[in-house]
């Protein structure tokens, strides 16, 4: 935060003395006053829901009772989830979904950005066209893809049958084996333009002088990319991957609209399953426990990720 009083840059006194801490707070009272409204809002919209979700996770809500009449069951909800076959299947689906969507969206976006970084006729038009999947509504895209994939009269099936490549339309979203990969393809199609834009922005920061110097020194195209361009893209790549991973862990629209998590739970991921438990089946307690577990898992991943990121920056500073 930017200091406006001039006191924020005052040297900090070492030591845990309470009086010292209070004095420090008092000295920075203007800073705290500035951030107070934001902290209050955060407490209301983030801290309270987290507290409420954790609290609710220790209760059960049978279908005949209102939420306010919930019954305390201790850790039963957690036990029910962790011993449920469905949870582990959904977890596996979520990991596959997140990993493949993130890695492949990033890879495709990265490659596209590199291709579009070169000057050629029609680059602007192509760039605009490639951004379309990202800017159109995810709901509309899901419905369109549902029809493209339709197992009886989908566009892909009609083309394949029409060309004589297949006898009958392939089963994309009505089969437990193919539904998740099919949805991942849609997700990659939706997300890769985001990675492309981020990398394109990163490419603008690569100094031309460095590339020219490397060329003069006889570096090949690959060497220039690997030793000059790529290091400059490391930070933007890290942020892009993080954002994609978080978005994919929290995906809802595409799987929910296209399959509702089916068939036979084969395309349920954490968020769709939690939604179904809460709003479709009113298992508020179980859904809350599920959310708490998801929160802990994501916080753990986030912790290690940020630690790795901080480690990289530290190394950069030391270098």
């Amino acid at each position, binding site marked *: 935060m930017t200091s406006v009083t001039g006191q924020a840059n005052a040297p900090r006194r070492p030591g845990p003395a309470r009086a010292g801490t209070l004095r420090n707070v008092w000295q920075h009272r203007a800073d705290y006053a500035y951030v107070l409204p934001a902290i209050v809002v955060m407490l209301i919209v983030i801290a309270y829901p987290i507290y409420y979700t954790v609290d609710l996770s220790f209760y059960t809500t049978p279908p005949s009772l209102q939420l306010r009449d919930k019954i305390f069951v201790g850790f039963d909800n957690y036990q*029910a989830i962790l011993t449920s076959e469905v949870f582990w299947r959904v977890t596996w689906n979520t990991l596959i979904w997140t990993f493949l969507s993130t890695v492949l969206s990033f890879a495709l976006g990265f490659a596209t950005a590199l291709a579009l970084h070169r000057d050629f006729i029609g680059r602007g038009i192509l760039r605009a066209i490639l951004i379309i999947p990202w800017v159109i509504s995810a709901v509309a895209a899901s419905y369109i893809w549902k029809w493209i994939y*339709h*197992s*009886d009269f989908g566009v892909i099936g009609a083309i394949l049958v029409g060309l004589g490549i297949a006898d009958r339309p392939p089963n994309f979203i*009505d089969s437990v084996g193919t539904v998740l990969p099919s949805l991942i393809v849609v997700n990659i199609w939706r997300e890769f333009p985001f990675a492309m834009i981020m990398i394109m922005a990163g490419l603008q920061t690569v100094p031309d002088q460095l590339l020219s110097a490397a060329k003069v020194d006889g570096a090949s195209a690959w060497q220039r990319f690997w030793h000059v361009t790529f290091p400059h893209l490391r930070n933007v790549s890290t942020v892009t991957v993080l954002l994609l991973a978080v978005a994919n862990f929290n995906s809802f629209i595409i799987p929910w609209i296209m399959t*509702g998590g*089916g*068939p036979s739970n084969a395309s349920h991921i954490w968020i769709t399953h939690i939604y179904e438990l809460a709003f479709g089946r009113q298992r508020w307690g179980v859904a809350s426990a599920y959310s708490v577990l998801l929160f802990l898992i994501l916080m753990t991943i986030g912790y290690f990720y940020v630690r790795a990121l901080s480690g990289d920056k530290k190394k950069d500073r030391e270098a």
Partner: protein
Amino acid sequence: MTRTLGCGAILRGTVVFASITSLIAGPALAAPPVDLSKWSPDYVRSIAGTEEFDTAAACGKVTPLDYKGRLTFWYQGVFEGDPDLLRQYYKDFFETFRKTYPNIQLEEQALTYNDLLDKFRTALLGNAAPMAVRLQILGGTEFASKGYLQPLKPEDVGWATEDFWPGAMKAVTWDGVTYGIPTNNETMAFIWNADIFKRAGLDPDKAPATWDDVVKYSKQIHDKLGIAGYGLVARKNAGNTPYRFMPQLWGYGGGVFDEADPSPTYGEVRLNSEASKRALQASYDMYVRDKSVPVSALTNQQADNQPLFLGGQLGMMISHPSDYNVMLDLQKKATGSDKDKAQTVIDNMRYGLIPTGPDGKRAVVFGGSNIHILKPEYVDGGKVDEPAAKALICFWTSPEWSLKMAYAGSNPGNLNGFKTKWMKERLDNIKFLDVTTSMLPYGIPFPALPESPEIMNIIIPDMLQNALTGAMSVDQAAEDAAKNVEDLKGGGGL
């Protein structure tokens, strides 16, 4: 077009009705406005247009026509699978209500069948519900048992309890108290394409008599013509799935509980009975063994079957009489040769009674919707304008509007609706209506339990999907579903 419900079928229907009346009849009631023991297409025709009703005058006695107030109202409205005719009636209803009660500020919101429950539940948690709501028949017990609804009986809005189907009144009763009023009640029928039957070597004017025949016919159609035979629907969280599978389950003698018995107690779970497994096996045979139904059945709903049927790519399906009007609407939108093709399908459309199980048991879901008033503490703003709510409910459940709002696809919740001139007009205009009204006596209501929405919208489709995708065997899927119902009733499970 030929009406294919023969005298024999009607006679059988009337005879079977005598033994099934107990399924829909309640305890000692005053005489209803129509004679349920005579129910047949001929009887329905004989009473149509025999009485006049003045809706404004009747509702004016409940809430004065100059009453000034405000009402928020959510309802299960028309959606993509409904005919344009119904859209017009919904429009007319709200226009007429506003004209009749010009000082009531009505803020209505239409939601689709599949979205209504989720949205309503969420609103209730935030005390942001509307003052009145029209819910699918499945939802009433859940919300009544939780204490969200105000007691509300037909007498509160100027009608008599006997004016409504006894089975429908059961669906709005919880712990002996009535919490709502039925707006419409429906039973579906079996539809087939006579031309496809003929080309497949089947009798074009004869519906399959049993569910085993449906399996056979579906295979024959698929094998001979390479198109889907029967319009199976197994999508999760879609009302279409239980409405199509439960008649099959009951027909084979199965059930979730004993809901198909004369006096159900809902004590014993029967989803894993041999009869229930036979019903599931029939679906498995069509989807997996014979591949004679749409592959997309797991993600489709009936609205997806309609264009398949109109395109001549589907031989048989279960639906409302309104599907005939939907086909007419869709045909109007077709162009070139597709228009002629669609006309051929419409000309060959036939309606019949839903097939029986191996022991001759015929069953269909006794569906419909109910209208309720919320308690003030759960309503946005904390107030309920009861006179305004009662005015709207009186209007919708009147003989006139309960018929008009169910014009193409259903039947009036208020039995007096059958006596109106609009019923007579409807019988002349809506093809095959007599077939679906003939199915009413075979109607079985969903179990009147708070757990019913989850059972019908999640557990039943899950059971079907588990078996049809090969994720589980038929036995395992049935056992798994039965266990899920047991767990649910015990308050646990995932």
